[in-house]
């Protein structure tokens, strides 16, 4: 963890410090850390545990349980391809393959220049206009393989 990360972690944790009688909430804290830093560095676990008054193992357990908590910084843009049933039925698998061919990385990897990270998601709740691709907070519906390159183009 860099010094910059370390001080931002401390800052984020300050807002999560439990004030009795409120009980420490590990998940809320980790989400706040991820919001501030973009990810939750595993090297920050002891510091988080100390602020919350819980064990390192409890923090590590929650961190490893939830798939939306990430321990590595993502690329500048996060591409999430929906693998839910409606997207699957509408051949979203073909869209996923087209994206992989375009960015040439495996799931959960980041392109070498740090532009994109690719992930799969289990449902975006956008089933009526599927297949769905989510880029950062932008949800795109009715995506077909030929649309992939123009879809990704604006995200530099």
């Amino acid at each position, binding site marked *: 963890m860099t010094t910059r990360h370390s001080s931002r972690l401390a800052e984020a944790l300050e807002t999560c410090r439990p004030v009795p009688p409120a*009980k*420490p*909430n*590990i*998940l*809320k*804290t*980790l*989400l706040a850390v991820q919001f501030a830093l973009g990810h939750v560095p595993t090297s920050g676990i002891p510091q988080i545990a100390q602020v919350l008054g819980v064990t390192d193992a*409890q923090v590590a*357990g*929650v961190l490893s*349980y*939830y*798939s*939306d*908590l990430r321990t590595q910084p993502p690329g500048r843009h996060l591409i999430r391809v929906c*693998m*839910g*049933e*409606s*997207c*699957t*039925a*509408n*051949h979203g698998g073909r869209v996923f393959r087209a994206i992989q061919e375009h960015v040439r990385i495996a799931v959960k990897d980041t392109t070498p220049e740090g532009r994109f990270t690719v992930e799969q*998601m*289990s*449902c*975006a*709740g*956008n*089933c*009526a*206009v*599927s297949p*769905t691709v989510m880029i950062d*907070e932008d*949800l*795109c*519906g*009715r995506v077909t393989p030929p649309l992939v390159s123009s879809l990704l183009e604006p995200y530099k």
Partner: protein
Amino acid sequence: MTRETIRCVPCQLVNLPPSFMTRLYLSNDTSSRAAGAGRLADAWSERPEIQLIRTSSRGAFFLEPMVERDTPDGREAWFNVVPDDLPRIVGGVGGTPVAGIPFLQQQTRFTFANFGITEPLALDEYQTRGGLKGLTAAQGLSPEAIVEELRISRLRGRGGAAFPVWKKWQVAQRTGSEQKYVVANADEGDAGTYCDRMIMEGDPFRLIEGMMICARAIGATRGHIYCRYEYPAAARAMRFAIQKAREADLLDCDDYPFDLEVVTGAGSYVCGEETALLESLEGRRGVVLAKPPYPAESGLYGKPTIVSNVLTFATIPNILANGGAWHASLGTEGSRGTMALQLGGRVKQPGLVEIPFGLTLRRVLDQFGGGMASGSRFKAVQVGGPLGSLFPESQLDIPICYDAFAEAGAILGHGGIVVYDDETNMVELARHFMAFTADESCGKCTPCRVGSVRGREILERIQAGGGTAESLDLLKDLGETMKATSLCALGGRAPYPVLTAIEHFPGEFRGRLKV
């Protein structure tokens, strides 16, 4: 001010006489935006001749982006609109009366009556259209009388388990405690479902009203909306709505304030199960707990807690406003009221359908789904999310109600209906289902944690051409074990889509086996 200068300024900032501007309605629902509504709003943001009102969506997503305007005979709509259509719309050319759209006209909208009409965060519009009448009625009743009204309504939970709502409420009401909680389960994880998202984004005060009625009935002073991480717009809308309700002094339960907050999850399907959800709400791993004790007796922080689905809470205001008997008069013997069905997959007309229980699956697919998407042929339909059974063509005459589905060994779940076409590979689909459970199992019980991984491996072996007839027998045996011994519905239901795929499409599996 010249015409040219007007063009440079967003229309909202210019005081044009109202007769100059045409008021247009465009949905701000996430799926409408994903279909292109956001592009329209951007393209038209500086057009002085229009006033764009962002509403909820009518749920006819196959027509989105859809733009509407007022006429003396009600609203007219333009479908699948692109930015260049604006002159046509402003000129009133080529619109269709909304009341004449068969997909909408044939529905019975109660819970979704406001959709496409109101601005989601306009509390005055919500009230003008009958909002808060249920809460007002509840405030004139004793807690026991509220529960009695729900008993008469015969409302069953809409999240999947279909448990009678009044029974849960009665337990929580009768359990003595200085602190009780109301929790809305907005962890809408079943792929193929989106009605909770629509409610939170499109009619958030309805959810708040339903939760407040519950709070009054059981004596709760705190509420949480557990919203999945994938729904940022829904969480934002709910937070705004709570703020507005608080400012309007609506969040008062008798004499003390009802404290309501939105909490986000972090991508765990099993957190839709109520005990796992409460674990997650307390900040821990979302692991399923053995029941009893039930949350209605001992839930969040060990206190009596009602956990209900968003759609369930959103159904309650109308029941209190119109009476339990009104609700009980709709639907079938064991399934009263209306159900929000969510059509997806390869149908021509995907979207939200609210109708009384009882119509057959075939009628729903034909009448509302409009048949198959162009160029594709029907293969199977899955009802009830990733744990729901597959139905082939020959079994489509099943009525949509809890009893008929239970009798068929299937589930209605949260109302998701996904249609697969003949290009779907059933072995791959079965593997997809098992892999999903293996990924999402919380790990608490062995049948689900280990069974789902072994199940996925067997299917991978079959897919790679290494399976034998014994592999299929083993898969069936494993499935029966998981059904009988898993702690919650994730492990207990996971075998259904896989085993129904094998049952209805045996040739596809046998064709992959080693001879």
